[in-house]
Every structure is written in structure tokens, then in C-alpha cells.
């Protein structure tokens, strides 16, 4: 008896009690619905340049599978990110056209000033123990900006955070999904707001500004 009690105490001390109990329950797999959307911002001036956008298969097919509370949670972050970025580029640049590869590009790139490639660098989420608690998520994107020659001009990361309070009900995936949506949206807004503060991007803009000023003298990219 004492032996069993000791074992139980050791299990509790090791914080394995919760997971041990959860392991006894049947494990489920949850496909988390995602639908992030960026709010149009009036405050940020667009970069007056056209860019190409490269969505690699690593991004578009990116899925995060995380085990929490004995279940598997599947976040289709790649497709959701593409959906979000398609709304975001218009706030950041004059125009954005999809391209199929990293530069140098074969043809049709004459009007482009650069190519930008978003990547998902990290994602994590937290589930509360009861459904009315707070669900949180954090995502880090890396953006790589390439000159048309193919040389990387800038590479930087943006991290977004999301927190969403849940509600009682039978829907298990909604609240983690909403927390992830908020994290992605936060990252997209930070991308737009911070783009022109990245020194490497500013240098690139200056170089392009000088070029534009020769052709279109009324366009200014002064900070």
C-alpha cells in the first residue's frame, strides 16, 4: 500500500499525473479552422513600388501539428497565411504580383522592384484547462526580400501574439483557431507598420527612390 502511495506521490511530484490521466482518455485529432483578416490601415503610407511575392510549397503546405492535453491540434497555417498576406501586401506596397520562383526571374519582371518571400519560422499555442479560460498563440514569420538579381536585400522576423477567451460549448477547435488568427493578424499589422523601419529595407528604398526620382520626380521616399 505504502509502495503504491509512494508511486502516486512521485507521479504527482513529477507533474505526470495530469498527462497520465489524459493518456487514459481516447485521443482526438482537431482540424483547427483559421480565417485571419487584416483591418485596412489608413495611417501607413504604401511603399510606392511593385513587388513580386513568392509563396513556396514550404509555406503553402505548412501545417502545425501540436499535441496538447492528449489530443492533436492541426493548424493549417500555410494556407491561412497566404490568405492573410494577399490582403496585406496591398497595404504595404503599390502592388504585389505572384511569382513562381526566386529571382532572377525569367520574364515579366520588368515592373517589379524586388521579390518578397514570407516563411513561417515558429508557432506555438496554449490551451486553458477549462474552456472559458484564455487560449493563446504566437507565430513568427521571416520575410526575405530579394533584389531582382537574386541577392537577398533584407531578412527579418515579425512575431505576432493572440489571446482569446473561450466559451462553454461543444466546439473544441474554434477558440484555438481564433487565438491563432489574432496572432497572424498581429504579425501582419506589425509587418506593415514596421516595414520602413528595417534599416536594410530603408537602404533598398533609398536606392529605388533615387531611381524613381529620376523617372518620376514627384515621387518621394524620404523618411
Amino acid at each position, binding site marked *: 500500500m505504502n509502495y503504491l502511495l509512494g508511486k502516486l506521490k*512521485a*507521479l*504527482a*511530484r*513529477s*507533474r505526470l*499525473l*495530469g*498527462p497520465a*490521466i*489524459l493518456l487514459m482518455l481516447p485521443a482526438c485529432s482537431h482540424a483547427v479552422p483559421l480565417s485571419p483578416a487584416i483591418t485596412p490601415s489608413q495611417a501607413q503610407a504604401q511603399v510606392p513600388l511593385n513587388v513580386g511575392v513568392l509563396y513556396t510549397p514550404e509555406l503553402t503546405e505548412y501545417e502545425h501539428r501540436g499535441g496538447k492535453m492528449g489530443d492533436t491540434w492541426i493548424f493549417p497555417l500555410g494556407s491561412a497565411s497566404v490568405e492573410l498576406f494577399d490582403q496585406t501586401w496591398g497595404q504595404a506596397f503599390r502592388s504585389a504580383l505572384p511569382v513562381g520562383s526566386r529571382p532572377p526571374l525569367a520574364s515579366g519582371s520588368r515592373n517589379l522592384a524586388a521579390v518578397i518571400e514570407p516563411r513561417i*519560422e*515558429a508557432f*506555438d*499555442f*496554449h490551451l*486553458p*484547462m*477549462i474552456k472559458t*479560460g*484564455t487560449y*493563446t*498563440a*504566437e507565430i*513568427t514569420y521571416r520575410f526575405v526580400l530579394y533584389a531582382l538579381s537574386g541577392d537577398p536585400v*533584407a531578412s*527579418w*522576423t515579425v*512575431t505576432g*501574439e493572440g489571446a482569446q477567451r473561450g466559451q462553454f460549448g461543444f466546439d473544441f477547435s474554434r477558440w484555438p483557431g481564433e487565438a491563432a488568427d489574432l496572432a497572424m493578424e498581429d504579425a501582419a499589422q506589425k509587418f506593415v507598420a514596421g516595414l520602413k523601419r528595417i*534599416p*536594410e529595407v*530603408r*537602404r533598398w528604398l533609398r536606392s529605388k527612390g533615387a531611381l524613381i526620382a529620376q523617372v518620376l520626380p514627384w515621387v518621394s521616399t524620404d523618411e
Partner: protein
Amino acid sequence: MRSNPLYLTLVVSLVLLASGCASYTPSSAPVPDASAIQLKQANRGVEAGADVYVEEERQKAIFDANLDEAGVIAIQVLAKNKTKRRMLVRPTDMVLTLQNGRAISTAGVNSVVNKVGEDGSVVGAALAFGIIGMLAASSAEEEARTARTEDYKHKAFKEVTLAPGQSGHGFVFFIPPPGTPDFNHATLRVRFVDSDTAKSRSVQLALRDLGFVKAEKKGAEKTEKYDN
């Protein structure tokens, strides 16, 4: 009897005592003085220093957690600008490179909190004290988690533009991904970017005695310890 506030108070107090870990005191330790950092390197007018929090006592004093057990490496970083130009230092530019060439990026504070957080106490409270216990423990867990997150954010190295003569410091966290082999040495790169010209320079710091043991192995060791 069961609706008696005294009974509720008693249950909540018992739950909090029993769960124990669902509390966090962010004011327990401020960010340590970075000028005491021993390991420093300079490169063309910029200087970086690093202090790896390997010891469990130091981890518990600053983070109220055993980061090593959670598979998190915490490093206090000092960045000094001795040039005449403004220099940007971003924690996301800091990279830990292992001897096998594998590069690990910094982890976000929420990810760190997820690793070391308060999980685990609520199930025990539910078993012991039923639904009231679970609600109380869950609420306490959430409060502790929020406090921990805010405190870690406060102590983290934040993106900073250093004016000439200025310095910045704070903690950066690395979470080696699953499958990372054990390692003892690594190199930390701290990058400084000229705010105006975007030219960068980096400082490499050779870190010793990290003693990183992969999480899977730690779990096994721990189980063995409790078996004995």
C-alpha cells in the same frame, strides 16, 4: 453547508496549497546587473557579452522555473555601442550555432512560458476537490501564467537602437527543437545593424559548459530518479 462562503474559502485555499505551483511572483528578482558579465567580445566598435543561466538556482531565482528541465536555454546578453553611429540590435538576429553547424533562432516569450508554465496542477485539483477546485485552480493558473509572461517579457532583450555610447541588455531564450543532440558548446552571434546605412557587424561569443541534454533523455532520467 456547501454554499457557505467559509466552505468555499476553505476549498479554494486548500486547492491553492495543494496545487502549489500555480503562483508566480514576478517581483522576486529584477534583471541582474549586466556589467558583471564576464564573457565579452568586441568587433569594430561594438561589444557583446553573454551569461548563460545554466545553474538551476539562478534559473529559479530569476524565472521561478527550472528552464533546463523544460529544454530552454536562457542567456543574458549585453550589447554596447562604442561607435559614433546609431546601431540597431534585434533579439531575432541573435543565433545560437551548435558545433555541428545547426543554427537555432531565439524563441518567443510565450513559447518559453508554454514550456515551463503552470500546467498540471488543475487536473490534480479537480480530482481532489471537484469542480470548485478545478475552477479555482484554473483561475489561479491563468493569473500565474499571465504574471509569468509579463515578467519574462520585462526581462527579455528587446529590440533597441543604441545611440553612440549606449548599451542594452536582457535575456534571450533558445528552445532546441526535438531531436537536437546533446551539446556542451555553442556560439552565440549578436548582430549590430547601422540604423542609417544598414551595414552590419557581428560579435561571436563562444559559450562553454551549456550541458544541454535532450528532453527525451531528461524525461527518462527523471523517471529513473523517482523509481529509486
